[in-house]
Structure formats: structure tokens, C-alpha cells
């Protein structure tokens, strides 16, 4: 009876079967494993969890993962917007190739990206040798982690902002120009506010992906404890030591921090929408 109240009637068949397949798959593939992690956390208890996470090495790893993800996503916000703008508004030779290439980080396995970046930026690599005279070292430093995360996060920003630029009404920009606004002023006061929500979503997607990224980072990072050791790597190390409780504690800390961060971004997004007055 209850199901009938929750679901409005439809002449189409197959609701029961499709709903059952979906829920079974969702439960076994997604919910059960997540439950196992959270259940482990409950059994350990918050005090014990805190004790396990509260070490210098783990805090350094967590801070590094979140800081590097934040920096890389901010850089992607800038270049992603520029790339999306150029791809939608300008016609130039090679545009379609660049447009297709934006999805490369989605398609290329992370381990492949990782060893390629590592080979490029290593002291004997092409970029590594070019940057050395400038006193810049990228591989085995935090900057290397930024580079890997910029690679991973770029398509999220571009692909979220690109369709919104395509849908912008040219009329608004024309009105602004007719009223005497210079181009820079129109871009700042007319175009940018309309893109802000999409920029926020793209930023949040890139950030969420970068925080947990592993494959593309570990090769270029050097993995020095307290310096360039990311949180996911620390989970792997703990698992290799068969220290399941410690690994679970770091995993739970990552889940909680990611969740808090996404909530924070959501709050800023709602606040900015209200301020700018866009729905």
C-alpha cells in the first residue's frame, strides 16, 4: 500500500523489475562497501579514531591532499574558463583538436598520466632540464603534485562552463556595449556573473576529484613522508602493513573532510547567487 502512495500511477510496465535491478546493484556495489567503512568507524569509536588520525604524518598528508587540490583547482578555474571561452567564442585553426583533447584526462588512465608527467619533469626529463636553470624543481616536490592535479581536474571546469558560455544571450552584451561599456567592463559585470554558478560547480567537481587522486600523483610526488606524501598513499601504506584500522581511520577522515568541503562550497555558491541575484 505504501509503495502506491509514494509512486504515482503510470501505464508503463517494468517499474518493479527495473527498480529491483537498480536497488540490488546499488546496494551490493556501492552501499555495502561504504557501509563497511562507516561501520568499521562506528565500531572503533570516535575517540579511538581521533587518536589514530592525530599524528603528524597523517595531518601532513591530509593537509597536503586538500591544499594541493585547492591550488590546482584554482589554477584550473582560471585556465578552464579561458579555454572554454576561446573554444566557444573564437574560430581558429586547431580548435576542434583542442576541444577533443580537453577530455584526454578523462580517457587516459591515471597511471599512464603519472609516469608520463614523471618522465617529463624528472631532473633528466625535457621539462625538468628546461626548468632546472631557473632554479625550479617540479618532480618530487609539492609543485609536481599541483601539475598532476591540474591535468586531472581541467576537463571538469571546461566541460561545466563551456555549455553555459554557448547559451549566453549575445543581446545582453550588445546592450552593455550600446550603453557605452568597454569590453572589459561588460565581461566583468555582465558575462562573469552569468558564468559564476557554472564556475563554482566545475571548481567543486575538480576539487572533489583532485583530493582523492592517486594514480597520476604518486609517480611525480616522490612520496617523502610529511612533505610530498598524499593521504590516499598513506592509506595504501597502512593497508600494505595490514593495519586495517589505521587505514579505515584515514579513509573516514578523508570522507568527512571532503563532505565538509563540498558543503562549504555549496554554501558559498548559494550566498553568491543571492548576492549577484541569479537563479
Amino acid at each position, binding site marked *: 500500500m505504501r509503495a502506491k502512495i509514494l509512486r504515482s500511477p503510470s501505464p508503463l510496465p517494468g*517499474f518493479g523489475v527495473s527498480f529491483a535491478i*537498480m536497488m540490488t546493484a546499488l546496494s551490493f556495489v556501492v552501499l555495502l*562497501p561504504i557501509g563497511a567503512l562507516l561501520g568499521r568507524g562506528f565500531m572503533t569509536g570516535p575517540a579511538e579514531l581521533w587518536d589514530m588520525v592525530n599524528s603528524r604524518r597523517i595531518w601532513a598528508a591530509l593537509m597536503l591532499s586538500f591544499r594541493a587540490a585547492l591550488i590546482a583547482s584554482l589554477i584550473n578555474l582560471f585556465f578552464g574558463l579561458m579555454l572554454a571561452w576561446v573554444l566557444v567564442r573564437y*574560430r581558429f585553426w586547431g580548435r576542434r583538436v583542442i576541444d577533443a583533447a580537453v577530455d584526454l584526462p578523462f*580517457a587516459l588512465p591515471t*597511471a599512464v598520466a603519472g609516469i*608520463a608527467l614523471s618522465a617529463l619533469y624528472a631532473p633528466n626529463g625535457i621539462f625538468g632540464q628546461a626548468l632546472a636553470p631557473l632554479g625550479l624543481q617540479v618532480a618530487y616536490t609539492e609543485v609536481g603534485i599541483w601539475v598532476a592535479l591540474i591535468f586531472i581536474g581541467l576537463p571538469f571546469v571546461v566541460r561545466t562552463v563551456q555549455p553555459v558560455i554557448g547559451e549566453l544571450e549575445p543581446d545582453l552584451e550588445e546592450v552593455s556595449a550600446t550603453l557605452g561599456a568597454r569590453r572589459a567592463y561588460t565581461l566583468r559585470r555582465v558575462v562573469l556573473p552569468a558564468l559564476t554558478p557554472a564556475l563554482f560547480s566545475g571548481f567543486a567537481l575538480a576539487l572533489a576529484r583532485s583530493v582523492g587522486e592517486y594514480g597520476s600523483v604518486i609517480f611525480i610526488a616522490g612520496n617523502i613522508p610529511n612533505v610530498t606524501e598524499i593521504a590516499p598513499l598513506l592509506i595504501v601504506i597502512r593497508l600494505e602493513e595490514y593495519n586495517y584500522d589505521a587505514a579505515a581511520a584515514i579513509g573516514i577522515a578523508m570522507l568527512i573532510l571532503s563532505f565538509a568541503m563540498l558543503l562549504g562550497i555549496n554554501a558559498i555558491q548559494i550566498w553568491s547567487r543571492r548576492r549577484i541575484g541569479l537563479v
Partner: protein
Amino acid sequence: MSDFTPAQTGRATAEPRPVRYLLIGGTTVFVALFLFAPLLTVFTEALADGWRSALAALSLPDARAAARMTLSIAAIAVPLNAIFGLAAAWAIAKFDFSGKAFLITLIDLPFSVSPVVAGLMLVLLFGANSSLGVWLMANDMRVVFAFPGILLATLFVTFPFVARELIPVMIEQGRTEEEAALTLGASGWRTFLTVTLPNIRWALLYGVLLCNARAMGEFGAVAIVSGKIRGKTATMPTMVEMFYNEYLSVAAFSLAAVLAMLALLTLLLKTLLEWRHADLLAATRLH
């Protein structure tokens, strides 16, 4: 296709020419340095000792076993997730029930979980440290460090791809066509096969394409769950890591080059789909 003219706006609403040149130049350099250079490096490093070494590396028993493993996993995981995605999209897009938004959030959940944490979850659930894992081992069934674990890890990370692509397309198409078919006397199954499926085939192919790319390329989750046993549970991406860590650079990059060619093929097919069937895909439209 004349050079540097704005696509749809007139002169008053275009950036000054120097700014345009600067933006186009800047993005081209950025894409070349951050996207093309790593891709090119994979191939130059693979061919560092010539074609023969690269091909010899690919015929190593470990590399071939890894390729077999990756292909088997994708051959099972992708169809399974396509069926799950179709079922989820049918239930969510064609019916009205409460809690839909929450359900979509749950389906999308694997995208916001680190692959390493996903692997950790499976080890906690099925590993030797859990009661379920102990029971499984007593009954001679291995999940962790074996095929089922790798399959589950792959299913987890690729779970949202098909459903996510199909749900918006199917919501937009509504259910009037299906209702018409049913009124005319078609069975439910026939309606699905002859009315729904042709409408969503390109979106389905698009979702399957992305799902397959991720299934073959997944590293973090699989690395943890598989235990990376050479010749047994190592997949192509984890074998790339092992070769690389053993300083077998040509072997690592040759295997990586195969994966990179697969990625390029995925991009090519994806771009073709976007050009020819953009109106039938969710990803290329604004919602």
C-alpha cells in the same frame, strides 16, 4: 573558418584583436604543455629503444597476462553496468516516485569517493580481517586479491557512467511514445526494444564508451584490491606501475602506449558521437 573571427557575436561584443590573439595563444600553449606533452612522452619513451624493444616488451608473459586480465574485467564490468544503468534510467526517468533526487545522489556517489578509499572499503568488507572474509576463505572463495575483487572495484568506480548519461536524455524524451506503443498493443518488452532503445542508443553508446575507458584504466581501486600479483591479478595499469618501479622504462611505457592509444580511440569515437548526434546526448547539452 576564417581566422580569428568571433563565432556568433559582432564587433562591438568581441574582445580587441590583440586580446584575442593572446587568449588563443595562451590556451594553445597551456594545452600543449599540460595535455599534449604528457601524451607525446608516452610514445617517445616507449620507442626510446626502437620498435623492436617496444614490441618485445609487449610480448612479455606478464604484460600479456595483464592485458588478458584488463580485457576480461572490462568484458564483464561494462555490460553489467550498462544493464544497471538502463534499469536505473528506466525506473528514474519513466516513473514518478518520491526520493528520486536522493537516489540519483547515491548513484553519483562513486564519483566523489577516492578510488583508494573505494579499494579500502572492499578490503574492509571482504578482506581477511572481516568476518565475511574469514567465512569466504573457509569456503575457499577469494574476493580480495582475486578476480571478483577487481571486478567489484571496477564496478564501483564505473557505476554512474551509463545511468548519468541516460537519465537526462530519457527524462527529456518523456513517455508519450512508449504510451502510444502500449496503446497500440505492443508488449512492454517490445515497447522497450523498438521504441525506447532506438531513441537512446547513441546516449547509451556514449555512456558505455566512457564506462569502458575508465574500466580499462582504473588504477587506485584495483591496485589495492588486486594485490598486484604478476601473471595472476595484475591489470594493465597496475603492470605499468610495476614495470616502472623496476626501472623497466620501455616495458612500462610500451604498455602505457597501448592504453594511451585506447584513450585516443575513445576520444575519437566520443568526438564523432558528439558531432553527429549531439542532440541525442546529455553530455553535450545544457540542462
